[in-house]
């Protein structure tokens, strides 16, 4: 169990303690304030170099990581994989060695292979590696920002402070995750974060889109999606990942929408206060109806906005942090 991510890598949320997660959420709260200033920049990582390596396409994650690094005054090396030597057949190991030779402090990496970030952390043990999504495995900053968004919304409703609440608002919170669990690294990171923070998590998906080892996960598979909707305080939808061939796991997109899409009819079954989440990019009309995505209970844009403070917190703690005891 990792007790704090200070001075460490962030590869997965599976082995991160509740205290460590709360520390990231609390630190992110300070960065929310920085992002509201007219000058949205602090010198915490001045002179540090953060390399951003996206072997898989991404808009929001790459942009928010790079924005986060720049707001911390770090220099950002951004590798456009499509126009790099990777296309000439350079191995991952050689690509990393080349970038490392330029002198970097951290790598933010997305890769289509599960475990790629762990592998890179072994190639360059002196560099902080932050996983921005590896295959079907993990997407830790998404899990953190989803948890942060939930805490923020619940704290606001109660007129309380997120920092003072710690992980309290998660105790017994009922979270339903719907859709393509099998191919979703977001689901894996979300579940790890929510369960560690004390929430109850249920999942709803067609049998073909459940991972084969679901019985080992700390979640309950629901029999009836419609009943689970009435149960949930939070509904987290997932994107049907066409690029991973999800399409061949369901008879048709239309049938998926009929059975597991959050349609207007289904949304009516939700409790009035239920929070609707989606990590983006959305397939409007497939896993979520366009009108549902635009309801006030849908916090999808807020999830995107929270990406920057969460990633600032992760970069700040891993890169600026040392493993020693924190000073108060």
């Amino acid at each position, binding site marked *: 169990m990792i007790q704090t991510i200070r001075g460490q890598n962030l590869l997965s949320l599976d082995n991160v303690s509740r205290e460590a997660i709360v520390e990231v959420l609390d*630190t992110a709260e300070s960065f929310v304030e*920085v992002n509201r200033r007219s000058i949205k920049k602090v*010198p915490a990582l001045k002179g540090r170099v953060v390399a951003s390596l996206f072997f898989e396409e991404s808009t929001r994650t790459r942009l928010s990581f790079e924005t986060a690094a720049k707001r911390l005054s770090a220099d950002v090396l951004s590798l456009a994989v499509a126009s790099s030597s990777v296309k000439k057949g350079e191995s991952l190991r050689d690509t990393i060695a080349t970038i490392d030779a330029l002198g970097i402090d951290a790598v933010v990496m997305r890769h289509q292979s599960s475990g790629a970030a762990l592998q890179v952390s072994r190639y360059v043990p002196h560099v902080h590696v932050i996983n921005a999504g590896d295959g079907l495995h993990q997407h830790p900053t998404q899990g953190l920002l989803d948890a942060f968004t939930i805490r923020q919304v619940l704290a606001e409703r109660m007129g309380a402070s997120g920092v003072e609440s710690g992980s309290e608002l998660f105790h017994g919170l009922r979270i339903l995750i719907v859709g393509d669990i099998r191919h979703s690294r977001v689901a894996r990171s979300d579940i790890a974060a929510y369960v560690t923070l004390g929430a109850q998590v249920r999942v709803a998906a067609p049998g073909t889109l459940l991972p084969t080892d679901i019985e080992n996960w700390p979640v309950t598979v629901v029999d009836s999606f419609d009943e689970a909707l009435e149960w949930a305080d939070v509904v987290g939808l997932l994107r049907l990942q066409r690029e991973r061939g999800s399409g061949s796991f369901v008879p048709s997109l239309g049938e998926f929408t009929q059975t597991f899409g959050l349609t207007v009819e289904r949304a009516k079954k939700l409790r009035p206060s239920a929070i609707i989440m989606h990590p983006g990019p959305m397939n409007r009309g497939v896993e979520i109806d366009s009108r549902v995505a635009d309801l006030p209970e849908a916090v999808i844009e807020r999830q995107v906005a929270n990406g920057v403070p969460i990633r600032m917190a992760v970069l700040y703690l891993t890169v*600026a942090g*040392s493993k020693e005891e924190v*000073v108060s």
Partner: protein
Amino acid sequence: MSSNDKPQTPRNDLAFSSKNQLLSHDDVARALKRMAHEIVERNHSAEKVSIIGLQTGGEPFATKLADILDEISGVKVPFGLLDVSFYRDDLSRNPVPRSAATTIDHDLTDRAVVLVDDVLFTGRTIRAALNALSDWGRPRSVQLAVMVDRGHRELPIRPDYVGKNLPTSLDEAITANLDGVWISKREPS
């Protein structure tokens, strides 16, 4: 934040003997009152003054100073809190400090900003605060008020308003809050 300014000694190695109280609650209250009058005197009024407390040690003193200023000047003095964690120059040497909220909701351009902290030690917190302040505008002047000046400056920084000058040795620690000021000695471990 005196604790952050401690030279590079791991915190858990410190064992302090019992504390000696140097200033009482009343002494602190009187000192704050005097400092408030000095602030008005120096700036000819409280009209342009902004009080900015440094997180977290400066907060109670800044709150109290702002209250006294409101009272004696009849002006509502703008008040804010500043966390300098992200501006420190010793992040690579010291563990990451736990950050606290910054709440400055007004433009500091042309204000006489009075920074308020509990203990002035190496001056590195104040350096970080001066850097941070420039993100909120260009103050007409920046002044420094501290409850205790314990010496051992590592930078050319001096306070404008001091509650109490306390020459200390490096193996001593100072605790200051509205209830009083204490000194304790580090025991050889």
